[in-house]
């Protein structure tokens, strides 16, 4: 087990007594899609050893959050995984609500499921799209970029007012309710945009001999190693381990939906692609069921200790005005204690460990970014393979530097 990290080399002996070549990749390289760096030791085109390096995008999320109020931190969580920001907002709000013992309203739970699943779909689309463009399959990139753009234009922008830095959740609810016509539009996008796009890419790739030979057996990992390395999410499921927190540690209202958890067999780039493709279809299933079941009622809890009072009351009533002022300036009051709350984000388990000493802001927040473990395992996935496979593997494990570096 100990040779998983560090010195293990699968490349074998050097040819022709040649010295290995040291190749630097990144930190600014078109195929890394983020500021990541690798130092690869090569024998010809075979990777003998690989040293990943990161931290170029470190924005001190954890340090900054210690001097902000609970609600202000929501804004920072957008910038973790910026491909699916809504999901990070939900994970954070759930962690703080666990500490406050708030039970959010039924409608809020459904809205959180909806935005999480839309985020999962666009996150997987970006992952597969950029992974394919690195392998030379540009068409798939455009086939997935268009539906993503439509989701931004017709669902996320009308809902949150912005594209990437959404900041839509609040402790105890959401910023506001769904806009008029959103439900119908969401149904329409799922049926007429997401599913056809998935079918198009599926037709282009899933039985494509070039794609399969390029990805099958590339960057594979066994279930045992994946568990030891702390893999979660699609990368773990591709290795054949059916762990999905939506099923295994069900939260919000995921237990009310009928959906399947796809798993792979070999944990290679091809399986990771297949798992993500199926997960998108399952997410559409969840969204459609959630839209059917979507209840009415308030979106926020009826408790002004956590949620801002109604604007009408703030302008007409002194207590509400004071409460509004205190919630904004002092921050909401969260009891002292510590919690760990995990959600199934697009990349895997997104965990928040929060320590509160009471008062308006956190004492400490630690984020468990899902792609941290996958990036850590890059040597294990790539050593002994070709240098060109590094690009294929890197895209398929979906490293997002925003959450990796925080």
């Amino acid at each position: 087990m100990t040779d998983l990290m560090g010195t293990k080399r699968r490349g074998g002996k050097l040819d022709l007594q040649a010295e290995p070549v040291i190749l630097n990749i990144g930190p600014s390289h078109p195929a890394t899609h983020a500021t990541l760096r690798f130092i690869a030791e090569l024998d010809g085109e075979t990777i003998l050893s690989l040293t990943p390096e990161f931290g170029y995008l470190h924005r001190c999320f954890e340090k900054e959050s210690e001097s902000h109020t609970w609600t202000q931190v929501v804004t920072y969580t957008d910038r973790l995984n910026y491909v699916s920001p809504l999901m990070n907002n939900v994970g954070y709000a759930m962690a703080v609500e666990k500490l406050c013992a708030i039970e959010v309203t039924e409608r809020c739970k459904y809205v959180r499921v909806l935005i999480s699943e839309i985020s999962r779909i666009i996150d997987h689309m970006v992952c597969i799209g950029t992974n394919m463009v690195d392998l030379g399959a540009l068409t798939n990139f455009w086939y997935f970029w268009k539906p993503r753009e439509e989701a931004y234009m017709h669902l996320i922008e009308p809902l949150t007012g912005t594209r990437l830095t959404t900041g839509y959740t609040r402790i105890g609810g959401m910023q506001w309710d769904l806009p008029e016509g959103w439900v119908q539009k969401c149904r329409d996008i799922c049926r007429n945009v997401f599913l056809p796009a998935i079918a198009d890419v599926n037709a282009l790739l899933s039985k494509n001999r070039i794609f399969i030979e390029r990805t099958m057996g590339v960057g594979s990992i066994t279930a045992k190693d994946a568990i030891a390395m702390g893999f979660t999410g699609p990368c773990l499921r591709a290795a054949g381990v059916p762990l999905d927190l939506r099923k295994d540690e069900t939260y919000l209202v995921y237990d009310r939906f009928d959906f399947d958890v796809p798993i792979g067999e070999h944990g290679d780039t091809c399986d990771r692609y297949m798992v993500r493709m199926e997960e998108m279809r399952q997410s559409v299933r969840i969204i459609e069921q959630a839209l059917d079941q979507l209840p009415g009622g308030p979106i926020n809890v009826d408790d002004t200790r956590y949620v801002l009072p109604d604007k009408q009351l703030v302008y007409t009533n002194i207590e509400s005005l004071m409460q509004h002022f205190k919630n904004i300036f002092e921050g909401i009051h969260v009891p002292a204690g510590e919690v760990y709350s995990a959600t199934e984000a697009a990349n895997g388990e997104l965990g928040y460990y929060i320590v509160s000493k009471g008062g308006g802001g956190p004492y400490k927040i630690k984020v468990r970014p899902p792609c941290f473990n996958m990036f850590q395992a890059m040597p294990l996935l790539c050593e002994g393979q070709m240098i060109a496979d590094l690009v294929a593997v890197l895209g398929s494990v979906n490293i997002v530097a925003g959450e990796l570096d925080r």
Partner: protein
Amino acid sequence: MAEENNSPVLRKLAEKFGDAIVSTHSGFGDDTAVVRREKIVEICTFLRDDPDLRFEFAMDLTGVDYLGEVPRFEVVYHLYSMEKKRRVRIKSRLHEEDPTIDSVSSVWPGMNWYEREAFDMYGIVFRDHPNLVRILMYEGFVGHPLRKDYPKAKRQPTVGPVE
């Protein structure tokens, strides 16, 4: 000695390790055990391998700086058992003068980088770690930025190109 509790994990830990478990609680539904740092590898190996516990996933590891308290630092482990669908939090307190603890990267190889990060951010030293160097900060950075006595607005010169 651990007080009476209803969590099977904590009960089992208390039975097996006795005095090495400083205290336990299940606040906010999270089972938590504070353990003596000397026993951390032994306890973690037991948690991973015991057929009733099977914590095969180490999800998270971090430090916390309780400046002004004695002991000052805390290392926090979050474990998950897929088989039993359970979580547990293990914590260990470290004194400011000697913030060292044994590395658990031999138990869960995935903890390697988490320990590097805790070292980088808090200056906690993990004994027998294969490669304990900075991870998010650059070589030549002075201090440990997540310590509470590290000023938030402090600036350090950025490094030039590597010679």
